[in-house]
């Protein structure tokens, strides 16, 4: 069958953002002189328009383009997370890139195109579209990571590129083996093949396929032991890109993981939950323990992002709609608190000097009260202290794990969360209780209206969804109802 207008309806948000990306590229070419400060806002306008075309997707599951793309509440929910990530990233990037002298249309276009890739990953219902969407997102991110073209930025880009290409190989080989075993790469088709043929679950080809797909996704979400690229890539990339990588890539990859593992591999839960149990434990523990040893806040946040992937994996292990809803909530909460924290990091830096060592934060809490307040809020949320969104997210995921009887994993998760309080609070303690050195490291903040707006929006998100999470949790549960 060919496609119809109903199919186009499902693709509208993606088309709008792709158009915005092309418009940004063209607009720079016709902008007179150096006046191109409006480019990021053109991108944000595209995201807002796309957001207005999305609510229609909430509701019963639909599928378009011969089963390639879903139009369901799950996809719509993830799209909204991604809109928040994309818009906040663009807001945060504006003043930062201008200060570093790299405010080029290519950056904004790549962010928007990566966003399209992420959205397609969340909506794809066929492993072929999942893979192509993942590559679209990844290649854009490789280029963004190297966008500053200094030594560390290039190293980040190169490491991420080599290991990312390597992991794509695993994913693709896994998909090929699944095709061999099931005769299809459609997610519903794989579920049907496993459900109708009990013997298939024991076939080495199918299991090898599931294993390789697991490895491929584990690379993308930076689960231990596939996390080696994360610290260097996150530390070397431009800070705004690090925020985008940590939140957007994670949201898109976990959305695809939910669709693949909760739907396609649903009947194999016994087989994969054990593997992911170990991965979740390792990811949480190693991420947190290494973060404690860091003296650079940006690198610490990289390890903390590994730890957060571990908490989310606990939800994947539980494998119920309740856990899935918790994961969706967590991804949104993490987007707000992480982009907010990285925005604070950008503000303390100046051109060529990132000032992300912990000592640079000494005394900043009283020198710049607003920055101190915002950073403290984001750190509290990451540590999972109420009344922030980070607390509710962890609570939802651990609750779902307990309901499935994963007591030990939950205990380890809570212990890890307690250990992480140490290094998050250390930032706050340094800001407020350590005197500023005689020759101040941070003399002024790199803050403009857009940066302030992004930080305030992220802060409001963290607080609002932490105090009244009810409506959002209901939406997430509704999203999962149509998925599973």
């Amino acid at each position: 069958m060919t496609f119809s207008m109903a199919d186009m309806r499902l693709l509208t948000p993606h088309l709008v953002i792709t158009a915005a990306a092309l418009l940004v590229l063209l607009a720079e070419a016709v902008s007179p002189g150096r006046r191109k400060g409006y480019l990021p806002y053109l991108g944000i306008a595209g995201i807002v328009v796309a957001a207005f075309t999305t609510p229609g997707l909430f509701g019963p599951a639909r599928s378009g383009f011969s089963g390639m793309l879903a139009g369901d509440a799950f996809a719509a929910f993830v799209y909204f997370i991604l809109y928040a990530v994309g818009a906040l990233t663009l807001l945060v990037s504006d003043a930062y890139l201008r200060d570093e002298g790299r405010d080029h249309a290519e950056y904004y276009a790549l962010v928007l195109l990566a966003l399209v890739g992420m959205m397609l990953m969340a909506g794809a219902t066929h492993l072929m579209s999942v893979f192509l969407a993942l590559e679209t997102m990844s290649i854009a991110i490789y280029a963004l990571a190297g966008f500053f073209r200094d030594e560390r930025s290039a190293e980040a880009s190169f490491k991420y590129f080599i290991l990312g290409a390597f992991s794509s190989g695993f994913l693709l080989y896994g998909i090929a083996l699944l095709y061999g075993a099931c005769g299809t790469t459609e997610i519903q088709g794989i579920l049907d093949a496993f459900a109708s043929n009990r013997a298939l679950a024991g076939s080495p080809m199918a299991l090898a396929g599931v294993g390789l797909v697991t490895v491929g996704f584990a690379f993308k979400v930076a689960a231990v032991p596939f996390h080696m690229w994360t610290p260097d890539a996150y530390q070397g990339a431009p800070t705004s890109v690090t925020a985008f990588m940590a939140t957007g890539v994670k949201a898109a990859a976990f959305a695809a993981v939910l669709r693949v593992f909760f739907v396609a591999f649903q009947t194999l839960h016994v087989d994969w939950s054990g593997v992911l149990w170990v991965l979740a434990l390792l990811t949480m523990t190693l991420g947190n323990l290494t973060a404690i040893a860091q003296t650079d806040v940006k690198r610490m946040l990289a390890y903390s992002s590994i730890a957060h992937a571990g908490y989310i994996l606990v939800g994947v292990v539980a494998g119920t709609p309740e856990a899935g809803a918790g994961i969706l909530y967590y991804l949104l909460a993490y987007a707000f608190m992480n982009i907010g924290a990285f925005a604070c990091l950008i503000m303390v830096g100046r051109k060529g000097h990132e000032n992300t060592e912990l000592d640079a934060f000494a005394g900043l809490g009283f020198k710049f009260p607003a920055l101190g307040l915002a950073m403290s809020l984001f750190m509290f949320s990451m540590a999972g202290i109420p009344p922030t969104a980070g607390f509710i997210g962890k609570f939802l995921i651990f609750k779902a794990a307990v309901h499935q009887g994963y007591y030990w994993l939950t205990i380890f998760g809570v212990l890890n969360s307690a250990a992480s309080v140490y290094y998050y609070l250390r930032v706050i303690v340094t800001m407020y209780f350590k005197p500023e050195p005689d020759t101040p490291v941070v003399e002024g903040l790199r803050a403009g209206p857009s940066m302030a707006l992004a930080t305030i929006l992220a802060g409001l998100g963290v607080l609002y969804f932490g105090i009244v999470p009810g409506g959002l949790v209901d939406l997430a549960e509704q999203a999962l109802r149509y998925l599973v």
Partner: protein
Amino acid sequence: MTLAIFFVFAAFAVLGGIGVLLARNPIHSALSLVGTMVSLAGIYLLHHAEFIFAIQLMVYAGAIMTLIVFVIMLLDVRHEEAETERLGFAKVFGMVLAGLMVVVLLVPLAAGLTGKPGGMTEEVLARVGSVEFLSEKLFTTYLLPFEIASVLLLVGLVGAVALAKKRL
């Protein structure tokens, strides 16, 4: 007869692969790779995949190999340094991995493990022809992935310019 031709192509493909690894001169490596690519194209033809055969010749044996040779000439690498003679950890590890790969490939053959047949059986191909079959699939069922691939290429293009161009 088909089987004999298959073995001839397969032997050339393997010999080409070995040549890539053993050749001292990078240009010889590249030429051996051409041999492998052409032999693979022959095997595709044996399987009635005429379109893939043509694409394999044009894209891999033609365009991509030209690029590789260009890069080799631009970088002006003449000969490998002699230090690769040593049997380092990386080499041993690589050999172990290669051995494992052989096992992984041979076990399913020995055990007779096969996957499900796809839609492109020989009868279907004989009836509609491989170009028609492929193009119909590509522009109907696989239309969305096809379009995603075009966005992917655009991303690669923009990314390469952003990373490599001196003054943006």
